[in-house]
């Protein structure tokens, strides 16, 4: 006689054994259904995630409208209307702002002379696109402590693209400034705030309108002719002082005033900046002579010297002399973009670029297809599992209905039998779910690694198979719920008969 034998344990153990079928056939069939569902689900979910990422991308969810003399009034009117929350809600608009585009010239090495050009654009520090840019996973490096307030911390700084960062520092990890060439040809070390994977409008540099305004007005650096500022890629202060004295001596400058102004990081290398007063004793030294002397300084090949100018710390700029280039409109999602383009055409006579429109609608369409596929898969799986479980259970209950009648005659409560059958169903489902989940995960990852990962390289960080997420939890919970519900209905229907009707098989 086994100890601790109880009706519940005997019933659950034996009914589980009977319902799981000969050679676990029920569990295996269920596992196969669930395995296929999980596999398809994992791939569809990752497609959806990728699509969602694209749709939620602050760089995809917006449109740009050209700002010129022909559209100026319409765009100003539109910008005013967008401040109305009802209008924003109607077209799912998050916000709008004017911006400018430009080019910046960056010196490829700090003491060298070669330069490269990059596209730049302005960004509103308080705009949602800026928030999205900084809160999304696009930022890969950040140099101030508080990136959220990057432009408040340094309105004269810039955020650059990963591409630009790699161009300047192929192997480096740390950079605190980039040398940008001014409109007059001088280089200015501009504080670097962050490096992002990509920037809006495919730009490589984003900066504030203040910075843009100052650069357009040739006022973003201090040009002080009595001092020359130099980069020195060397940390030996005494050695550097010696070199400077030597050079200054060669330049016939006695007792030059030299000040170490700051220590910067350039591609993992510390860079000293020095202010060198050349010709202080000789106030009338012509500028051309000064330039000649500093050119001599820069030509010393054994020392990495380079001339630069401090960035202007002004926080105001007169922008009345120039106009914006674009009005950017950012959307919460793209569902109303077609309606919005109709509105632009009819109300403001503004034409939205059809290519942009269809691209945005494609995002929306493929996103909806992906969601539809997931929901369809979930529905098919749930229905399949539900039909299989209820069919198996119904056949089993019809086979043992006389025995169940006998149990009822012996005094088992209906609710006890219902709850025990629900427990058995849950056990069977769990027995099928766990291996299906593990095998689907393994197969999905192998498939992803050895086939899709090699054939479809879209994004190195993109998962092609995503199984463990909140959707799968909802999916499993739904399967459980439906299976439990079907079990409840099937058992209750059988037990609605009296014990006598079950035992003597009356009216089935």
């Amino acid at each position, binding site marked *: 006689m086994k100890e601790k034998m109880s009706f519940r344990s005997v019933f659950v153990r034996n009914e589980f054994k009977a319902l799981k079928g000969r050679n676990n056939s029920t569990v295996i069939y269920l596992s196969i259904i669930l395995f296929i569902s999980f596999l398809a689900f994992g791939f569809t979910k990752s497609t959806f995630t990728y699509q969602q990422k694209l749709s939620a991308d602050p760089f995809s969810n917006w449109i740009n409208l050209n700002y010129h003399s022909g559209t100026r009034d319409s765009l100003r009117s539109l910008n005013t209307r967008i401040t109305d929350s009802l209008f924003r809600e109607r077209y799912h608009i998050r916000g709008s702002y004017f911006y400018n585009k430009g080019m910046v010239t960056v010196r490829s090495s700090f003491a060298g002379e070669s330069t490269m050009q990059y596209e730049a654009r302005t960004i509103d520090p308080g705009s949602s696109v800026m928030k999205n840019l900084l809160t999304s996973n696009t930022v890969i490096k950040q140099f101030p402590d508080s990136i959220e307030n990057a432009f408040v911390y340094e309105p004269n700084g810039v955020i650059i693209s990963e591409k630009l960062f790699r161009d300047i520092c192929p192997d480096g990890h740390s950079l605190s400034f980039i040398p940008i060439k001014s409109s007059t040809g001088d280089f200015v070390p501009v504080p670097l705030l962050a490096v992002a994977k990509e920037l809006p409008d495919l730009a490589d540099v984003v900066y504030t309108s203040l910075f843009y305004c100052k650069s357009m007005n040739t006022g973003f650096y201090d040009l002080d002719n009595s001092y020359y500022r130099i980069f020195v890629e060397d940390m030996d202060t005494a050695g550097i002082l010696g070199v400077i004295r030597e050079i200054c001596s060669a330049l016939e400058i006695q007792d030059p005033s030299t000040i170490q102004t700051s220590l910067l990081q350039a591609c993992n290398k510390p860079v000293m900046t020095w202010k060198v007063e050349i010709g202080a004793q000789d106030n009338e030294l012509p500028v051309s002579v000064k330039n000649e002397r500093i050119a001599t300084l820069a030509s010393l090949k054994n020392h990495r010297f380079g001339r630069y100018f401090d960035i202007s710390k002004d926080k105001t700029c007169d922008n009345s002399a120039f106009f914006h280039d674009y009005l950017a409109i950012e959307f919460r999602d793209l569902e109303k973009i077609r309606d919005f383009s109709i509105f632009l055409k009819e109300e403001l006579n503004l034409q939205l670029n059809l290519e942009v429109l269809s691209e945005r609608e494609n995002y929306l369409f493929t996103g909806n297809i992906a969601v539809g596929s997931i929901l369809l898969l979930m529905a098919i799986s749930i229905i399949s599992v539900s039909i299989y479980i209820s069919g198996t259970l119904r056949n089993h209950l019809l086979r043992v209905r006389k*025995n169940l009648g006998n149990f009822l005659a*012996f005094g088992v409560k209906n609710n006890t039998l219902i709850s025990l059958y629900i427990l058995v169903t849950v056990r069977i489902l769990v027995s099928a779910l766990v291996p299906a989940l593990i095998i689907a995960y393994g197969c999905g990852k192998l498939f992803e690694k050895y086939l899709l990962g090699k054939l479809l390289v879209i994004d190195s960080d993109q998962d092609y198979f995503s199984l463990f997420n909140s959707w799968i939890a909802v999916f499993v919970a739904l399967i459980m719920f439906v299976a439990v519900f079907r079990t409840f209905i099937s058992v209750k229907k059988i037990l609605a008969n009296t014990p006598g009707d079950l035992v003597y098989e009356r009216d089935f």
Partner: protein
Amino acid sequence: MIRNVFEIHGLECAYVHRMNREKNTVLRIDNLSVPMGKLSVILGPSGSGKSTLIETLGLMNNTINKGHVNYNHETGCVKINREMWLNGKELTRIRNEHFSFIFQSDFLMPYYSPEENMMIGSLIRKCDHRHESDPADLKSFCRQMGLNFAEINSKNTAELSVGQKQRLSFIRAMVKKSSVIFGDEPTGNLDELNSELLLDVLKRSIRSNGHQSALLVSHNILLSVAKADFIILLSPCGDMYEVHRDNVFARSPGRWENGSGMILSDDDLTSRIRMVVNYSSPARFSV
């Protein structure tokens, strides 16, 4: 003083057709008392309502159209009537605490072990009422029924013979230790020897426990007359079957006595029962 386990008053049993809701009365009993602590057997032709009576008294089906039954047990009395079926919990409680059943088919679960099948009745009772059963009972009943517990338990239930399974279902009912054991042709699948053995074991159990009663339906007239303490003969009257006081026979030493004081020997009773039972169609007795 003889106590009665069931006291039937003006009982009329009918089945309601599920489709057209027509009532079909199958049994009428004006007054009948089934004695407590006795082996009572119901005899009658096929279709006479024997199983209906067992189902009604055992709370397996609500066939009561009129009347009621008083069920007396050790600690009280329960009135069984049509309205009682509105309280499902009470029905289950009474079945769980007081009744056991043996059917013509064994109704063993083929995928349960023989031991589990024998214990299930006791486990059902224990499940809700902390009823403790003695494991020794199981082996003792197996021995009494001519079964080797270890040998039986080493097989699958599905592998057992029909007779073995029927005996297991009898043991299942016995180990539950209930107040009333109902049997619907419990010896139908057994040979003479094992049928007699089953009734002997049942009688011994009843005698050793003064409050236990058994009410069986049987077609085996000779065995019933030989083993029963009380015989209820369902005989035709009009288009249905009835129990008259003259058709209820209580065993006295060496003879049977009915409600009218008529004294019959075993042989007389047997031939009287045969006369009723052989007229199997109720229609033949229509007035």
